């Protein structure tokens, strides 16, 4: 325990180097990964830490994206303010929708989150005057990054590279905040609810209230990632709130391992890189993805991080078997 490797710092520093490689493509992939890692990690606050399965997380991603894009494009609001507003708006809607969702449990909860997300999508799709309807909002401006020209080393970068630095720093702050929340007494209560929601009531926990709080926090960070993604994507479209977009962070989280804080981020990286590699060989990416998921669910239910952690655990102390994974996949330990 004493000589822990500061993995988080190492990874962040490594990512900082990416634009120096000088490849537009690498920066593009890295930005994609960083932003979606935040999206997936926000979902995991619900899935892995509170034990809530949601099929509608894209709603908050989409709301954050539209809010930030509209503020920047139509009203010329400075980026940082618009970005935070995106998160706040997503959190607000998470509070409203969550108020109803936490009244239900299990599959009913999941279906209601999906229902709300589809409503958000439908509104984005049809409200032509504001959201641009089917056409979406193209040409979302990049934030004003000219100040970077005054910074040595950064001056000569393309705007995409500069935006990557901004996204990386902001996402790193979000990760630090999320980590802090997960490790807090509040986070402990969430894991208690995940483990045994019925019992949690009998130690004096208002389970619905805590679930709602987790829902709002997760919505906030999903909104922040959506806001970044809209700028990165140079446009915001109704797809952002569509149900297939909700599946993305779910797959990432399962792939990386929902029992670990960094699981979803690792899953995001793995999924995006895998997608890039495989689509360059074949057009049957969904087929490959299906296969990967099947192998994962049967052979490595703990995801990439869970499997690695398990292997390390076995190497350290050789006797006995691995702790049995819970029969309920949602309630695996952190």
């Amino acid at each position, binding site marked *: 325990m004493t000589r822990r490797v500061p993995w988080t710092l190492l990874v962040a520093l490594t990512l900082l180097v990416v634009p120096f490689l000088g490849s537009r493509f690498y920066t593009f992939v890295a930005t994609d990964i960083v932003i979606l890692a935040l999206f997936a990690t926000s979902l995991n606050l619900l899935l892995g830490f509170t034990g809530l399965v949601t099929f509608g997380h894209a709603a908050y991603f989409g709301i954050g994206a539209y809010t930030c894009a509209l503020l920047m494009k139509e009203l010329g609001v400075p980026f940082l303010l618009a970005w935070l507003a995106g998160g706040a708006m997503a959190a607000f809607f998470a509070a409203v929708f969550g108020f109803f969702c936490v009244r239900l449990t299990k599959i009913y909860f999941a279906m209601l989150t999906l229902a709300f997300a589809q409503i958000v999508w439908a509104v984005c799709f049809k409200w032509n005057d504001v959201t641009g309807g089917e056409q979406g909002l193209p040409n979302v401006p990049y934030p004003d990054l000219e100040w970077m020209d005054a910074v040595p080393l950064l001056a000569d970068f393309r705007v995409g590279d500069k935006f990557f630095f901004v996204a990386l720093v902001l996402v790193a702050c979000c990760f630090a905040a999320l980590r802090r929340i997960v490790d807090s007494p509040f*986070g402990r209560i969430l894991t208690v609810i995940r*483990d045994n929601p*019925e019992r949690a*009531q*009998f*130690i004096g*926990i208002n389970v619905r209230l805590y679930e709602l709080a987790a829902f709002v926090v997760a919505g906030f960070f999903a909104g922040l990632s959506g806001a970044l993604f809209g700028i990165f994507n140079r446009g915001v479209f109704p797809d952002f709130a569509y149900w297939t977009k909700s599946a993305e962070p779910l797959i990432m989280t399962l792939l990386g391992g929902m029992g670990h804080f960094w699981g979803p981020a690792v899953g995001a990286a793995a999924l995006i890189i895998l997608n890039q590699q495989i689509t360059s060989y074949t057009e049957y990416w969904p087929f490959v993805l299906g296969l990967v998921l099947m192998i994962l669910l049967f052979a490595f239910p703990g995801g990439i991080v869970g499997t690695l952690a398990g292997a390390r655990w076995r190497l350290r102390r050789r006797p006995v078997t691995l702790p049995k994974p819970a029969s309920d996949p949602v309630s695996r*330990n952190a």
Partner: protein
Amino acid sequence: MLELSGLRKSFGGFGAVNGVSLSVERGRIAAVIGPNGAGKSTLFNLITGHLKPTEGRVVLRGEDITGAPPHRICRMGMGRSFQRTNIFPLLTVFENVQAALIAHRGHGRNFWARSARLYREETEELLASLGLLDKADVKAGELSHGNQKQVELGIALAGDPDILLLDEPTAGMSATETRETIALLKRIAEMRGLTLLFTEHDMEVVFSIAERIAVLHQGRIIAEGTPEAVQRDPEVRRVYLGERH
């Protein structure tokens, strides 16, 4: 301390609890006994807010708590354990008890502090009093059945209750574990001035610690009094004790 009046619960047409009135004085150790299906667990679920009574009232320290949600009743000083062990299996023993402390102190709203070392001393003290300190870092779900029951007791005690409802605290325990648990319960109840209300199958346990016994039969209390009085009651002998003694 606890006052039940005319408590009734029916599921569909079936009356599981049919008008139970009972009062438990502060500091007493009281037992509810009765054959299987007598309505003991239902009664406990009505008292702790798990189920809403069809009729009747539950009064805790003069305050009507009928139909209040479990978390509120818990925060008013009522702890409970379950017949089937009900803990947080994937958390460590330490975390189980610590979480109950966090919840009890209303600290769960704090999302910025560090939880790892929070209430460490108190948690360890409580674990020590239950003889669980050496298992603090074990996942609760991996413990023996008897130890899990102790963890559950620890969770209940962490809420610093005034009254503790235990649904078969020694169910499934070996004879030794049962004896130890009984001694422990007695000691803790005395030390903390706890009011205890428990159900139990094992008559030896009941008669060794209960000061008052209520006999439940088909959702009704057919006798209530000191162990001696209950033992002599002809009705009780007929429907219940007679079958065993």
